[in-house]
């Protein structure tokens, strides 16, 4: 049985581990340290942790001030409040100057669950994708979350790490190198390529299992970096498989599906579909029930693949 852990716990642990190796790391939060799990860092390094209270805009600009002073700030809050409420602070005070600030923003997507639509960010990737200089990492499991934190620390400039709330089984290999800007093939297949990101990677693997029974060989690719986007991978997958399906726990507008569409349009005749949240807000419910209601389970992915190949 693979190890299961919430991505936010993996994020908190990774910060503590990184903090031990790099004394420039400081962690900022906006009264959500016990939800984003930066509280782990606070316990380990109380004098390197700064709480800004409920003031995300101030926190983001202050993070720029830390970065301008040669420190390596990781600022955390919920994905919606970071990318949404503090959008223009990230845009002008951080990305515009390529300030070396990292945002580990948790509780992304529908999987916040019961808190409902006011807290479910269906648009955070889209908001960050349009900002120049931004790198966007979307880990799919605890191992990849740890790798994303360490990789972000090596990138010179702003990095958004999208951290989902649920407990997730480990599906990737600790020894596989994590190379930002690339797409990682998890399973070979020649009939269709499923490009999945975040929590959808596991569902895509399950979908590929069920498709295999029917004789459909689906390639499954883990899109852990939405930006910069690995266009070469997408084009070669389109060439190899002739069909591409994107799957994301995010709006189909502006996220992974859009990124793939932008690459394929005019460059490929491959069949193409986007699976994701269809320009709607979420609502309260258990994450699994919401994934079911929004058509984001393995069964939906398999059905979409069949339809695309049909």
């Amino acid at each position, binding site marked *: 049985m693979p190890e299961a852990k919430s991505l936010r716990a993996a994020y908190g642990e990774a910060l503590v581990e990184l903090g031990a190796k790099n004394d420039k790391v400081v962690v900022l939060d906006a009264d959500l340290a016990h939800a984003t799990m930066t509280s782990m860092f606070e316990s380990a390094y109380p004098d390197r942790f700064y709480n800004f209270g409920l003031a995300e805009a101030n926190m983001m600009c202050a993070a720029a001030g830390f970065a301008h002073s040669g420190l390596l700030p990781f600022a955390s809050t919920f994905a919606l409040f970071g990318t949404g409420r503090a959008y*223009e602070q990230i845009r002008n005070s951080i990305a515009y100057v390529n300030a070396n600030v990292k945002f580990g923003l948790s509780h992304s997507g529908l999987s916040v669950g019961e808190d409902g639509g006011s807290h479910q960010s269906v648009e955070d990737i889209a908001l960050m994708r349009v900002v120049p200089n931004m790198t966007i990492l979307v880990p799919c499991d605890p191992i990849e979350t740890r790798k994303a934190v360490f990789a972000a620390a090596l990138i010179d400039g702003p990095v958004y790490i999208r951290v989902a709330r649920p407990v997730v089984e480990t599906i990737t290999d600790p020894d596989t190198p994590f190379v930002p800007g690339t797409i990682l093939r998890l399973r070979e297949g020649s009939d269709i390529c499923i490009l999945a990101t975040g929590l959808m990677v596991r569902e895509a693997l399950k979908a590929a299992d069920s498709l295999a029974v029917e004789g459909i060989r689906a390639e499954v690719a883990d899109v852990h970096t939405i930006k910069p986007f690995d266009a070469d991978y997408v084009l070669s997958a389109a060439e190899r498989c002739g069909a591409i399906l994107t799957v994301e726990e995010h709006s189909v507008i502006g996220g992974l599906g859009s990124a793939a569409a932008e690459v394929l349009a005019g460059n490929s005749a491959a069949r193409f579909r986007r699976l994701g949240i269809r320009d709607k807000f979420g609502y309260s419910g258990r994450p699994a029930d919401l994934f079911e209601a929004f058509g984001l389970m393995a069964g939906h992915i398999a059905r979409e693949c069949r339809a695309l190949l049909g």
Partner: protein
Amino acid sequence: MGRESLDATELALRRDIIKMLYLCQSGHPGGSLSCVEILEGLYYRTLRIDPSRPDWEDRDRFVLSKGHSCPALYAILADLGFFPRSDLWRLRQVDSHLQGHPDMTKTPGIDANTGSLGQGLSIALGLALAAKHKRKMYRVFALVGDGEVQEGMIWEAAMAAAHYKLDNLVVLLDHNGLQIDGPNEKVMGLGNIVSKFSAFGFDCEEVDGHDPEAVASAAGRRTEGKPRFIRCRTVKGKGVSFMEGIAGWHGKPMNAQEYETALRELGGDQDA
């Protein structure tokens, strides 16, 4: 009642501001002219800086949170030798390092990108917190506008500055009373702004913002465990008669006749 006359430096800086704004036919004269002596008090009498080493780690930091007033800052940075004075005449041009709002990645001597009002003070807060974190002795000065303090972020930063006891942070307010749409009191009254900062935990002082010695003296003081707030009483458009106290000169280009008049009033015949 403020200080009556401007000295040669203040007139020369103003002539540079007027010239660069006339040449680019855009930009913000009113708020640039109101903060000249505040910047003079800081840059010529207070800040520990070295124009030959703009990235000197231990320098004092200055954040022009009211970023649109950057022509005044550019004139001073040029005068101090951070870059050639001739650069000023390329303000806002496509190949110039002098952007419409301050850009630390392009212009030597700029410590933070500002222009989107409200953000600069929070960056200054981060700089001050980082200085404490690194046990550095340098101080951080931020100049905010009176319209700018209507931004909610200002108060997020003010609360945090007191919470973290940032006695290395000095906030100066260029209080000329006018913003784009008219007088502060008509657009969105500030109330008793000194009482407000005081209630947020700042040590407060009020000075004549056109008296650089008074500004420097207030900015130089330090209160253990508290950030400082200095309300600088100023006149928008100070030094150019037809701009003084007129909100319309917030961001209006001058025509040739207005330019000549402004230069003459500022002793323009003294420029060789």
